[in-house]
């Protein structure tokens, strides 16, 4: 009954306002592939969402005649299903949902719109029309770890972490393994700020770590505040998500940036060609998905080492999680001569030996 009433109401309104869709002028774009993006943060965050939006712009620039892009920013994870469905309903043929929290809503909407293709970032559930993609950020962190191991005079590195999810934990581990490979006695102090983005709090965490003896900072949060703090105090730091050199020209060593352009454009092409298939893409340095910003503020020999390491990872000669990898309690996680399988890295919830912090289990 209620349903019928509502449909009736909708029909009446629809008839009265039949001019609506004409006025919105969507007709001209009808033959183009509409590609929608859903961001968890503001596109102006100069971090994760910003970097994703760069790929949207790259797509629009690369295929201006065949593709029409649109986006929704600042979409709360708890309220994302409607936003995703709205994109699907307004004619999008390909939708990128760019945060882990969008996983279930994406799958739900995908079931309703079997002809629309979806690409979900950093999740693990797929379906016929939902593909997943992510970047092997840990590869970049391993390189950073090596640089820090070489450059730290105090032997202590400060790590500003957001939330204890596997992506962040595996990053801390890879960083530590890289640092230990050049300085076995290196120490890492981890501070969890429980936010992806709060410049003030990130700066406070940076100050605390520097006060406690860290002389290099690295972060898995999105603002440039820690870099600026390092710059102010004459210390060194790594950037995150996008190249933040301009914020700290004397402090930034490099920055781990995500480059989604290649993936995004390839997906759009595949949809247009009719060759799109669901699947998982986990790209690293080799695929150009993880890019290290230019190595700066370091001696030439360290720079050479960093470049070599980057190349070796790209060539598959170095895997950051090559055994023996020991957990904090000394148990063997990866045996000597083996490398950690992807599922282990994807679900990592333990620290490697030497990290002075505890994880909530």
């Amino acid at each position, binding site marked *: 009954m209620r349903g019928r009433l509502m449909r009736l109401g909708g029909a009446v309104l629809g008839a009265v306002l039949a001019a609506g869709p004409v006025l919105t002028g969507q007709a001209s774009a009808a033959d183009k592939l509409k590609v929608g993006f859903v961001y968890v943060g503001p596109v102006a965050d*100069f971090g994760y969402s910003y970097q994703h939006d760069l790929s949207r712009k790259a797509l629009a620039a690369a295929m201006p005649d065949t593709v029409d892009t649109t986006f929704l920013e600042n979409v709360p994870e708890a309220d994302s299903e409607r936003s995703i469905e709205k994109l699907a309903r307004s004619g999008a043929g390909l939708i990128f949902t760019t945060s882990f929290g969008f996983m279930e809503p994406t799958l739900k909407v995908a079931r309703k719109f079997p002809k629309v293709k979806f690409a979900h970032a950093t999740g693990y559930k797929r379906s016929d029309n939902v593909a997943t993609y992510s970047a092997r950020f840990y590869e970049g962190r391993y390189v950073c770890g090596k640089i820090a191991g070489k450059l730290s005079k105090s032997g202590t590195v400060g790590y500003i972490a957001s939330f204890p999810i596997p992506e962040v934990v595996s990053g801390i581990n890879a960083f530590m393994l890289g640092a230990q490979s050049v300085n076995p006695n290196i120490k890492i102090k981890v501070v*969890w700020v*429980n936010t992806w983005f709060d410049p*003030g709090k990130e700066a*406070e965490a940076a*100050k*605390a770590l520097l*006060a406690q003896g860290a002389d290099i900072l690295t972060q898995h949060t999105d603002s440039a505040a820690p870099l600026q703090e390092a710059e102010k105090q004459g210390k060194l730091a790594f950037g995150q998500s996008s190249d933040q050199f*301009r914020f700290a020209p004397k402090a930034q060593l490099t920055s781990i940036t995500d480059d989604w352009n290649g993936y995004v454009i390839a997906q759009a092409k595949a949809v247009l060609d009719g060759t799109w298939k669901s699947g998982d893409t986990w790209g690293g340095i080799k695929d150009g998905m993880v890019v290290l910003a230019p190595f700066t503020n370091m001696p030439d020999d360290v720079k050479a080492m960093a470049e070599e390491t980057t190349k070796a990872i790209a060539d598959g000669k170095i895997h950051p999680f090559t055994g023996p990898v020991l957990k904090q309690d000394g148990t063997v996680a990866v045996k000597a001569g083996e490398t950690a399988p992807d599922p282990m890295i994807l679900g990592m919830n333990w620290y490697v030996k030497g990290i002075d912090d505890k994880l909530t289990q």
Partner: protein
Amino acid sequence: MTLDIVQMVLVTVLAAATPLILAGLGELVAERSGVLNLGVEGMMIFGAAVSFALAMQTGSTLLGALGGAGAGLGLAALFGLLTVGLAANQVASGLSLTILGLGLSGLVGANYVGIKRDPAPHLAIPGLTDLPGIGRLLFGQDAFVYTAVALVAAVSWFLWRTRAGLTLRAIGDDPVATHALGLKVRRVRFLSVLFGGACAGLGGAYLALAYTPFWSPGMTAGRGWIALALVVFASWRPLRVAAGALLFGGATVLQLHAQAAGLGLPGQLLSALPYLATILALVLLSLGRRQGGSLAPAALGRVFTPSR
């Protein structure tokens, strides 16, 4: 060495408390006159955006800071028009102001994303600033911090030592009676709201020009709300606003230090500490106080219309 760490912690705490003190003092004055403005977060973020944009355009930190205060003042004028002039509901108007401020700040700041500015200069007096232990704390801050400290004294003095301040407090307690005495209730309230807006805007300017000198959407990250809570915490007394801001900032900074030192407690628990500490402190203060009437301005949140 340890003395230096203590000083560094104190410097950080003072810096973290400064935006809260600025915004809190402004809100305190508004509330003392009987107007509850829940739009502090909106005025603060708008102040941050405008101050950064203006400072980039003019190259002057001072003009930027004034612009930030002006932006907060402008929004407060809208709020005052609604609540004091048109007797609109203060709580709903304040929350709407927050939404408006967030939106406007994004529009103003859009062209300034990803741009860095040098932080506001710090005081440096040869000899004094280098004093071990206290030099940087007392003689090495930026102008915002000194302004905040001066404002605490100024607002205290104004509210308790001047006739105008007495009038303001009287209006907050009983607008009807003060109106009957011939005092200009609406004018005083409007000016108090403006002052509150300017202070919130200045607090935002501090974030964008000194604390983390860049513009980013949402960079106030809820500090306006904390400032609001601190006014209550302070029982509407300026010195206690400063004390509360230092307590809150101190708990935040100390929990980060505790983590860096490897305490091994869940991060969520430590992150909750500043909020729990504030509640606990207020409970303890209440225990020490004899049971009595509320400390809030008696007419807080109530609209006043002169004709009856």
